[in-house]
């Protein structure tokens, strides 16, 4: 491992997550196995206090990446390093410590919160599980977490049930629950896509403020490019299990190179119609079946620029300057 990755908080190295697919009788008899390659060689790093947006459509593998980072899914190969240590080799106290330092917020607070338990009980729960502090201290910390996400007065919100809150407030409860253990890394999987438009900016602003105040690092997963623009330092664009473009938000959004990124950016329904037509690259058809990936570049059957090379060889993610990485034959010389 190079020195550069030593002080990175989180590093993914050539992460692959394949899920076995239920076999047909023919496949059982012939001994063949098929795999769904949900994540197929993903590498990236998140530094302290950095926000990386992982952007992609459904089926791109972005949620599987998140679930692997928190240890809910085991990788087929590759590594997830936290401060240089492979998280899948941790056990005992080390593993418990890792789980405290990395917390996750899910898409739908209506699902991730228990409707029958008071908000306070749920926010306090991680402290109970980890046996941290006295009961009074736990309650105090839950109040603090509620305050930190703007649910004031905390005593009032502590007593409420999820159904007595708005969608935006519920998502803030989920964030408070993730914060109560004072984590270093927050994995936020589509935290704003199931809440109201007017609450979205509130949650985004809150997440940015938490980074500023607590130095929190974040893996922000979304299909909404505009929110990635507003919140992230860097962005990785995923398509069918691979990162196709990576760089700072300015690099990727003002100078998108990969045809997929350009198509995605072009599809953002902008308030001013002219803007949309300017960058739009039209892709053919829809995302293919992940069990039946095309050879070569995965985008080639849909890409208007596809050439022979794209149909045979898979493009590598290469640096086109200043840390802006692209996996496309249009930009790889030779």
């Amino acid at each position, binding site marked *: 491992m190079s020195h550069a990755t030593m002080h990175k908080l989180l590093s993914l190295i050539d992460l692959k997550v394949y899920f076995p697919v239920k076999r047909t009788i023919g496949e059982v008899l012939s001994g063949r196995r098929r795999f769904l390659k949900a994540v197929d060689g993903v590498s990236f790093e998140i530094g302290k206090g950095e926000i990386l947006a992982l952007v992609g459509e459904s089926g791109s593998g972005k949620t599987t990446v998140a679930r692997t980072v928190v240890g809910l899914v085991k990788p087929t190969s590759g590594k997830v390093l936290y401060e240089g240590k492979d998280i899948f080799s941790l056990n005992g106290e080390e593993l418990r410590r890792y789980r405290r330092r990395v917390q996750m917020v899910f898409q739908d607070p209506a699902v991730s919160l228990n409707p029958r338990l008071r908000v306070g009980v749920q926010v306090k729960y991680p402290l109970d599980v980890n046996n941290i502090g006295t009961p009074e201290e736990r309650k105090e910390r839950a109040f603090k977490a509620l305050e930190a996400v703007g649910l004031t007065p905390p005593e009032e919100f502590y007593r409420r049930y999820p159904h007595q809150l708005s969608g935006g407030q519920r998502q803030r409860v989920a964030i408070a629950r993730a914060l109560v253990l004072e984590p270093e890394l927050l994995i936020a999987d589509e935290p704003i896509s199931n809440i109201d438009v007017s609450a979205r900016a509130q949650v*985004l602003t809150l997440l940015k403020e938490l980074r500023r105040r607590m130095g929190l690092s974040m893996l922000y997963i979304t299909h909404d*490019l505009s929110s990635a*623009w*507003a919140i992230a330092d860097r962005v990785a664009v995923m398509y069918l299990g691979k990162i196709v473009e990576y760089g700072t938000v300015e690099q990727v959004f003002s100078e998108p190179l990969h045809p997929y990124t350009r198509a995605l*950016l072009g599809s*953002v329904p902008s308030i001013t119609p002219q803007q949309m037509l300017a960058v739009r690259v039209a892709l053919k058809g829809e995302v293919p079946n992940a069990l039946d990936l095309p050879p070569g570049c995965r985008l080639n059957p849909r890409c208007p620029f596809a050439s022979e090379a794209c149909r045979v060889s898979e493009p590598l993610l290469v640096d086109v300057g200043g840390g802006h990485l692209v996996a496309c034959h249009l930009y790889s010389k030779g």
Partner: protein
Amino acid sequence: MSLLEVRDLKVSYTTRRGRIEALSGVSLALGEGEVVGVVGESGSGKSTLGQAILRLLPRYAHIEGGEVLFQGRNLLELEEDEMREIRGREIAMVFQDPYSSLNPVMRIIDHFSELYEEHGAGYTREEAAKLAGDILEKMGVPREKLLEYPHQMSGGQRQRVAIALGLALNPRLLIADEITTALDALVEAQIVDLLKEVRHTFKTSILFITHNMGLVAQLADKVTVMYAGKIVEFGNTRDVISSPLHPYTKALLASVPRIGGSKELQPIPGDPPDMRSPPPGCRFHPRCPLATEKCRSEEPPLKLKGDRLVACHYA
């Protein structure tokens, strides 16, 4: 004359936790061939409006007053069998989840046959298959898909089929309720393109219900902004977006991040009201930076301002 005119429509829901006023006097006009966007958050009443027009409201809903004039006829006064004639033939509706209009155990062709039969079109099997195939192709779905079941298609294709079904009897008005919300970004853009084509080739008027102002900008000639069961602003899309008059419209537009724009977002403070007890006066006043005593006590009427309608004491 407008194709559709909604006048002072009031709808309430009776729930276990009390009475909810979903629409508190909503008026709206939609001209022949026009696309009107209805923008609002959940609870604003935008979906209730769509359902009330076609009288597809759930049983616990009550239409408390108002009129829905379609080509001059008040749909609220029609008999149920007359209404059935209107649905599909005159006004069609497409929903967010295509499964609300597609039956999982029926092939696509059977959906069309059933629709033709119900409206007494009297086509033979071959004619029905030909017509259904034609319209599917116009929606960008290969004719062969007629023999497939909904689950064999992608989400985008299912939504195209739902739109094709909506247009099958060539209705005058299509009500599209959040039809791209469940779709991925690229597919959403394709469906928006499709609707643009539809309005030109079929000359269908569209009531486009959404929470996404960006989509309205792409598609609609006019836009109605709803908040807490009321219309707060109505006007030409371009004007409303470039110079919003109502504080809610302003705040909504400013709170949405734009690529290339400022990264400092301006969230709207607070939350939408509990519709069991909406705030007195202007319903937006608890969240409005400009609110005064008048806003807390007196409800602002929807007033004409140039060629725009605004419900704000200070617009």
